[in-house]
């Protein structure tokens, strides 16, 4: 009789323990999920930013724009035929 009581008590404890563990794990998974969602959101933000920067870089480095700035703002001109010289490395 005494043995059976112990068994029952043990099982009750085990049930309680696993119930608590389920609660804990559920809580844990929710927290991790919240974290995952936040990270995914942050990842998405970075994606948006990256694409935006790429497009911005593409726009800023557009050859037409560079040429315009070089010609108009910096007063640059293509190298003229007369001012071009050939530098040969010795031995060639």
């Amino acid at each position, binding site marked *: 009789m005494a043995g059976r009581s112990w068994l029952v008590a043990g099982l009750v404890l085990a049930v309680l323990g696993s119930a608590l563990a389920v609660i804990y794990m559920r809580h844990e998974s929710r927290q991790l999920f919240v974290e995952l969602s936040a990270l995914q959101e942050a990842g998405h933000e970075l994606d948006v930013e990256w694409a935006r920067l790429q497009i911005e870089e593409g726009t800023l480095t*557009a*050859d037409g724009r560079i040429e315009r700035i070089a010609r108009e703002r910096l007063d640059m001109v293509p190298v003229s035929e007369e001012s071009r010289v*050939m530098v040969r490395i010795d031995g060639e």
Partner: protein
Amino acid sequence: MANRAGTTTPPWRHGLLLAGFAVVACVLLWRAVELQVEQGDFLRDQAESRHLRTLPIPAHRGMITDRNGEPLAVSAPVETVWANPRDLPADPRRLEPLAEALGLDAGGLAERVADYRGRQFMYVRRHVSPDMAARVRELGIPGVHLQREYRRFYPGGEVCAQLIGLTNIDGVGQEGLELAFDDWLSGTPGKKRVIKDLRGGIVENVEQLREPEPGRDLVLSIDRGLQYLAYRELKKAVRERGARAGSAVLLDADTGEVLAMVNQPSFNPNRRDEIRPEATRNRAIIDTFEPGSTMKPFTVATALASGAYDPHTPVDTHPGYIWVDGYTIKDHRNYGQLDVTGVIKKSSNVGATRIAMSMEPEQLWRTLSAVGIGEAVGSGFPGEAAGRLRHFSQWYRADFAAHSYGYGMSVTLLQLARAYGVIAADGQRRPVSLLRLDEPPAGRQVIPAATARSLRKILQAVIEPGGTGTRAAVAGYSVAGKTGTVHKPGAGGYEEDSYTAVFAGMAPMDDPRFVLAVMVDEPKTEEYSGGRVAAPVFSRIMAGALRLMSVPPERVPDLQMAMQGLEEHS
């Protein structure tokens, strides 16, 4: 029935209790019937609207870049505003801030909402900027939702427009390389399971069923800098000449890669609503024309390879015209006695005909088909034209004569560039590629190397004083090339005053780095010839390409000499 106190319970009390229980039971039963039968459908809908849904996760479409990794087409995440019209506020005035935030006309939006009333889904505005999306989120109007999508941006703009092509708003390739390589570029959308509320908002992400698989990047053979250079010069020429259209193709002479391919008119692929269909044609690949005099070098190549001619063999073009089966073939004027080089230099039709007629039609046909005339380039570009070269067995004598100076056949500009690529590569023919190659593909010898080399020397004479292509010259470099001024065929024969101006060539002459073909269609100015209209464009693009790619000039004073010069000056 007596209790401890000895009092008796009246019998009606028992009945009263029973009746009370019966009433309660009836009420419960009625309620159950009401829920099941009367409101059953409604409640079932409500429950269903809360259950799990499987949603697609859009996959990122691969980038298209130039050969150096510069982006030419990029997919950026954007948000799309959609609404469930059933949940929208009934008062149209409450939608006004939404219309304002999205830059829409408030009246127009109210009308569209009225049209969609009764349905569960409508786009309010697709592909909005992140700022707009943030404002919509702040407004928090019930029934308005945001959804993530990708939008395609083209940093290259009009410069690469026809080559790259377009996707539709759902990110599926529609034209150009976007269409040709759609499978390569587009990934596989993922799947996720979510719990949604009855308004369609996601309550909880349950699990990811399948990761979205992003598309792969596509690396083109195009060099963005050269592409821009070619586009700028072509656009300028087409505008100055009032021409209908124009194209230019720049090839790497050693690998067959297309370094630039530009067309006019063009369009800005980032503004879809302004696109005119004729501007989307990648004329260099899908439109054909008669190559005219640009084919004469291949007549000469046939003659040189036959062994019967060398560059100085005399050719009599007297008296400036020749009759072939009732057709007159004319030169601009009587060039008299020329040699083979002179025939090319002056672009004499009579000379080309005389040279060809001294051989068999099959010999000319073999050369033309060997350099790829009438044979598709196999670029994979949608709508690529193969051009046309009739078999020599179908040539009459007049056809044979016409073929010797480039009429009676049709080519695309890319085919023309490929044919000149054979001359540039010492007679080796390589496949043309729109994608960057890691190593040059194996070539096939289709013209003897010695013939190709002496042909280049002959073509150099075209650029020298007295030739038709003097304006193609590039200071500091030797250029070899050929002009073409082609009468355009119209209804009922060739038109008197409608031309295509062509120039095809290569530089530097000794060991060509680039092959360039330029075509300007229907120049409206007094000057319309290939030598006047197309050759200057060739010169400017070629000069820029040689400089940008640091090809050492052949004729430049040494530093030593320059220093001496400086010292003398000081």
